[in-house]
């Protein structure tokens, strides 16, 4: 089936009892047991919920995966990887992942004896060198947040499998509409459904998709034992949003490409990063592993004063954390999303005080361009 067809139908057969075309929001968290010692599938809402299961089935199909699990946030989804880790294990992480991922790994999980190496995945040799007997996972985000570096999922997966490791890809920025990591060899896909999948800035959620039953069972165990599950109502909202994912992503992509092209010639911008521009160093890779370039553009202005003034002058773009909503947002990475990194850490990976991440919404692109132009003056 085509992507849009699956988005609308996968997992969502009409309700058995009533034939309701849209599945109900199954609110109960407990299920009456038919008989003592019976073998019912549903017992308790933390373990199983029908609306959640529908969302899980849906995203599994969209990512071309076999299994999926839903969580109460993207970070909780990433945390569920602890199901395949134990004290003493080692994880290699691409060096400019989302700040919250960094915080989770560096500040929390390290307390439990799991170690992390932060490596630039442009250089796969140094990644390979960092692999030890304790290494279990190669964790990457592509494009990275906020610098939009691409990582070759195919090659990273090959490297992982050569060493019997799992390749985990945070696919939040692209969504399965533009990039399907499992088809490129990855083992596990992570989503913050807070972003494009839900797309309306009103739900926090996370998803994990995979093909391997053993991995699935381990992560499902974490879902149930840690209990970071999304509410049935939130699952229903994400399901409703996914139905328009294809149309939204097309528009995000179209608006972003047009804006990136126009900003490319603006003198007040020191640097513009967008995988859809031919000037992007990995434009060819982008065309290979993605079917679109997404809605995120990162720009660097000439200095911090100009950056502040630009952010304050914008009228349509809202200064706010997060991305992927229908409305356009701008984010000052150094003080907002990546504030959990040290100053040196930020600078080392190129997050300067003048770096701005733009999440291009689906408003009329003429209005967006006009707003950016007036603020850049």
């Amino acid at each position, binding site marked *: 089936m085509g992507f849009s067809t699956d988005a609308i139908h996968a997992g969502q057969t009409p309700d058995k*009892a*009533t034939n*309701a*075309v849209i599945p*109900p929001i199954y*609110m*109960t968290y*407990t*299920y009456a047991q*038919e008989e003592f010692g019976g073998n019912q599938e549903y017992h308790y809402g933390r373990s199983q919920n029908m609306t959640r299961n529908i969302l899980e089935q849906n995203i599994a199909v969209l990512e071309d995966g076999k299994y999926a699990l839903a969580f109460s946030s993207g970070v909780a989804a990433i945390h569920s990887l602890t199901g395949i880790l134990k004290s003493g294990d080692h994880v290699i992480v691409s060096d400019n992942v989302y700040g919250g991922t960094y915080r989770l790994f560096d500040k929390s999980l390290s307390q439990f004896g799991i170690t992390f190496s932060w490596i630039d995945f442009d250089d796969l040799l140094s990644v390979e060198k960092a692999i030890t007997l304790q290494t279990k996972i190669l964790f990457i985000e592509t494009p990275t947040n906020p610098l939009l570096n691409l990582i070759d999922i195919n090659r990273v997966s090959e490297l992982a499998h050569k060493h019997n490791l799992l390749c985990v890809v945070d696919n939040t920025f692209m969504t399965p509409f533009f990039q399907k990591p499992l088809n490129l060899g990855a083992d596990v896909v992570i989503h913050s459904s807070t972003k494009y999948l839900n797309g309306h800035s009103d739900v926090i959620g996370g998803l994990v998709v995979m093909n391997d039953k053993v991995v699935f069972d381990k992560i499902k165990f974490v879902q149930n034992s840690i209990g970071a599950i999304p509410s049935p109502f939130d699952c229903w909202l994400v399901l409703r949003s996914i139905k328009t994912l294809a149309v939204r992503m097309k528009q995000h992509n179209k608006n972003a490409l047009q804006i990136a092209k126009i900003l490319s010639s603006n003198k007040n911008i020191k640097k513009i990063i967008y995988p859809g521009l031919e000037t992007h160093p990995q434009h060819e890779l982008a065309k290979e592993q993605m079917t679109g370039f997404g809605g995120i553009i990162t720009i660097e202005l000439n200095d911090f004063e100009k950056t502040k003034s630009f952010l304050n002058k914008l009228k349509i773009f809202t200064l706010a954390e997060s991305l992927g909503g229908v409305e356009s947002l701008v984010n000052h990475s150094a003080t907002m999303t990546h504030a959990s990194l040290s100053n040196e850490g930020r600078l080392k990976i190129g997050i300067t005080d003048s770096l701005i991440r733009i999440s291009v919404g689906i408003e009329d692109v003429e209005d967006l361009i006009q707003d950016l132009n007036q603020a850049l003056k």
Partner: protein
Amino acid sequence: MSEEKKNNKFDETKYSMDTRIIYGKNISTKWDYSHHVTAPISSSTTFRLDSVERGAHGFERFANTKVFGEETPIFIYDRLGEPNKDLLEENLAYVENGEMAVTFATGMGAISAALGICVGAGDEIIAHHTLYGCTISLLNNWYPRYNINVKYIDLTNADNLIGALTDKTKVVYFESPANPNLDIIDIKKIVKIISDFNSSRDEEHQVLSILDNTFSTPFCQRPIEFGVDFVVHSLTKGIGGFGTDMGGAVIGKRKYKDILLLYRKDFGAVLSPKSAWAILTYGLPTLSLRTRNQIQSAKKIANYLNVHPAIEFVNYPGLSNYKYYEVAKKQMVDFNGEFSPGTLIYFVLKGKNPAASKENGSKFMDYIADKAYTMNLAVSLGHTRTLIEHPASMTHSVVPPEKLNERGIDAGGVRLAIGLENVDDIIKDLDEALKIIL
């Protein structure tokens, strides 16, 4: 689970209604939502039909309970019926001791439907002169357009009805306690007079009674047990109970179900399934608990106000000096037979004349709006929060000042709808506010 339960043959009547209000009939034919203890929220406007034949059968069954009875419905489209509304209707009918219920988007949706199926051009409605403001507006501003005449009389004296009934009368409509002054109407007497009048009339020309039971909720009063034909409710109030959802219902005899469903389908005031779910899940099951608590508080507050020097008079059915106390005691009883005088209080502040009393009322309510923690100046009632309002300028603003008197409303009347706060806290706030009047 036992076979009797599965087959809906389980006899639950040995349990008290306080308990049954939580379970309803326990197993519904409307939606076998598998083993879920709490109903799912239905969120589909349309329902898949397996074949044209089944579709045709669904349409044939719709609003045809006369033929198909309570068979599991074939759902077609939300406006015609869907699981959450159907479940709620089943439980509402059960609690009010009616044979059926049909829900609507709001109380006004329900009231206009109940009246709408009973009257046509040339017919006449007799109504008690004191009613909720929007009901007055419906009767006065819209019905004349359809050549439906409305005659207002004082039904607190039931005998007034005897001379008022005519060949054209189709409906006797009232609230008891009435909004806002808490007039109490002797339901049994009204029913008796109507039934005497009906005995000489054929089936086509029977006069029907409609009672708006919003102020009492079925916890305090079940008018169908006294012979009333229809109970209407604003579910927005005590039954919903939390102030989150609008809703309405008409409850009565089974033979009216089909026409009510057709009316709802064609006029379109359907209750949202999400609201139906909230009322089904939170509202109705906690009705006993909330109302019993609110009545306890209302009694204490009414007694406090009753002797307060700044207050001219207090209308509360539970006060033994209230002029309708005896009637109220007869008909306002809870599921276990205890006197349940309701959760609303109406009172008037002292003043040399109506204008001065009104001014004192405004001062008092503004002070509360400004300073009180336990009360909100807001319309509506049956909320978790205590709500206070000024009928003459709010809920009943449709009544012009010079007509307030004939509708039994005082220019300075205050309506107080008790919530779930600690009663002594409410009294503390009232006490402070009343001090400024003294």
